[in-house]
């Protein structure tokens, strides 16, 4: 049976059967780029966001303060430019610019990883800044009042809480990255969207190939969002605290069950 004689479902099954390897490689590439770049994007975002959230200290000398101004100006430019232009064009700009101006051939993988990381970093910088500002200033005062330095306060008290607060946004970025790696097809990265284009081009079955590819994208993003939601609930822990006592006499008002890990309940 030739492909023109098949119905919609038969064509989808045919595509899956014939191109399962390509889909798998494409999906794997997409996931690797999305995960690695979200991670590095978060690292860039943390550094940039922290620098931007730091209030100038009146005790610093003039040189240090003006240096901070310059650094902050550069970082603001970075954030605004990378948030304000399409990633597809950034990919073309960096990939072709590197080879034409600096005669550097970045290669598909390094170009893809650099572009998506730097782009994610620009978004994350603002998110981290917001996350730091969202932490109650009382937390900083509490830490400073027992003599903790600015950096200790940041690393032990403020950042852990800020990261918890921005977890939903990190998840959001991961999902956006899974989908947005499709723009890398402009520089020839063989990810999931590139796979779709090759298949649909070879078989002229755009509708069926799009349906299959969309389904794969959805499975990837939905799985990731569920995993992240699970991690968030794990980070929060239970809302109530049960006194962990093994002394059943403490529960004179009627202990119904006792669990070694979670304590007793009534």
């Amino acid at each position, binding site marked *: 049976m030739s492909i023109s004689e098949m119905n919609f479902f038969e064509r989808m099954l045919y595509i899956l059967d014939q191109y399962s390897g390509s889909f798998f490689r494409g999906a794997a590439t997409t996931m690797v780029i999305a995960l690695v770049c979200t991670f590095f994007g978060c690292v860039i975002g943390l550094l940039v966001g922290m620098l931007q959230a730091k209030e100038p200290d*009146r005790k610093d000398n003039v040189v240090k303060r003006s240096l901070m101004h310059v650094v902050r100006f550069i970082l603001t430019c970075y954030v605004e430019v990378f948030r304000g232009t399409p990633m597809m064009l950034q990919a073309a700009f960096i990939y072709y610019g590197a080879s034409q101006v600096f005669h550097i051939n970045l290669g598909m993988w390094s170009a893809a990883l650099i572009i998506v990381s730097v782009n994610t970093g620009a978004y994350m910088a603002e998110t981290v800044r917001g996350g730091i500002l969202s932490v109650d200033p009382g937390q900083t005062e*509490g830490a400073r*009042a*027992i*003599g903790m330095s600015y950096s200790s306060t940041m690393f032990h008290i403020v950042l852990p809480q800020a990261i918890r607060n921005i977890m939903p946004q990190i998840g959001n970025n991961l999902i956006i990255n899974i989908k947005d790696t499709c723009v890398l097809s402009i520089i020839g990265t063989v990810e999931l969207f590139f796979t779709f284009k090759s298949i649909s081009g070879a078989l002229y079955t755009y509708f069926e190939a799009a349906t299959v590819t969309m389904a794969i994208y959805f499975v990837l993003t939905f799985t990731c969002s569920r995993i992240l939601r699970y991690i968030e609930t794990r980070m929060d822990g*239970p*809302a109530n605290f049960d006194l962990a006592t093994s002394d059943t006499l403490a529960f004179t008002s009627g202990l119904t069950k006792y669990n070694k890990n979670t304590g007793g309940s009534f």
Partner: protein
Amino acid sequence: MEKIIEVEHLVKTFGTNEVLKDISFDVEKGDVTSIIGASGSGKSTLLRCLNMLEEATSGKILYHGKNILNGEVNEDKLRTKVGMVFQSFNLFNNMNVLENCMIGQVNVLKRNKAEAKEKAMHYLSSVGMAQYVNAKPRQLSGGQKQRVAIARALAMDPEVLLFDEPTSALDPEMVGEVLDVMKELASTGMTMLVVTHEMAFARDVSNNVIYMYDGRIEEEGSPEKIFNNPGKERTQDFLSRFINK
């Protein structure tokens, strides 16, 4: 007695607003000083100047004779010696009760973990919170949080403890448990400065009372004098409003 803190002609302005106007007083070792006065009279700002959470505009604050306002004393080091308990507790939300009481000891005083834990447990027991070592702050009631906050401050072995309205954010039935801990602490000889609206505490526990009005110390003296025989009309007015309540 040995003077720990001497405040001389302290002034603090926020922009053009002069919040503290020429404040002078001394704190001796073992003193329990209550600072009373209406809201906005500068009580909390005064307290926050003493551990440099606010930067004083002019005047002197001498800590063991050294002026802390001209850089003679390291800010972070001073704060380990002059502890603070806040109205809003400010326990670290990302840590459990035990970690809250250990982080300062390990990070600032460089004690080893075992020693820090022992000290933390000692003070948590003394405020009656030893069973809650694994609880997170959001799982505790206000009174419990404040008792942990006091243990956290004590674990740093401070010389002076500043209390900034420690019971003002608490439900009425929890005020007692925190005041009991503070009374206990006062009886051990800890030097304390307490900004409070609890007149019974000021009268019964402290040995020195400062009444503030509009950024100045209107009257200072023993609780007997301030409560039974106030010299100024404003002090009388203020106290009569509390007693009639």
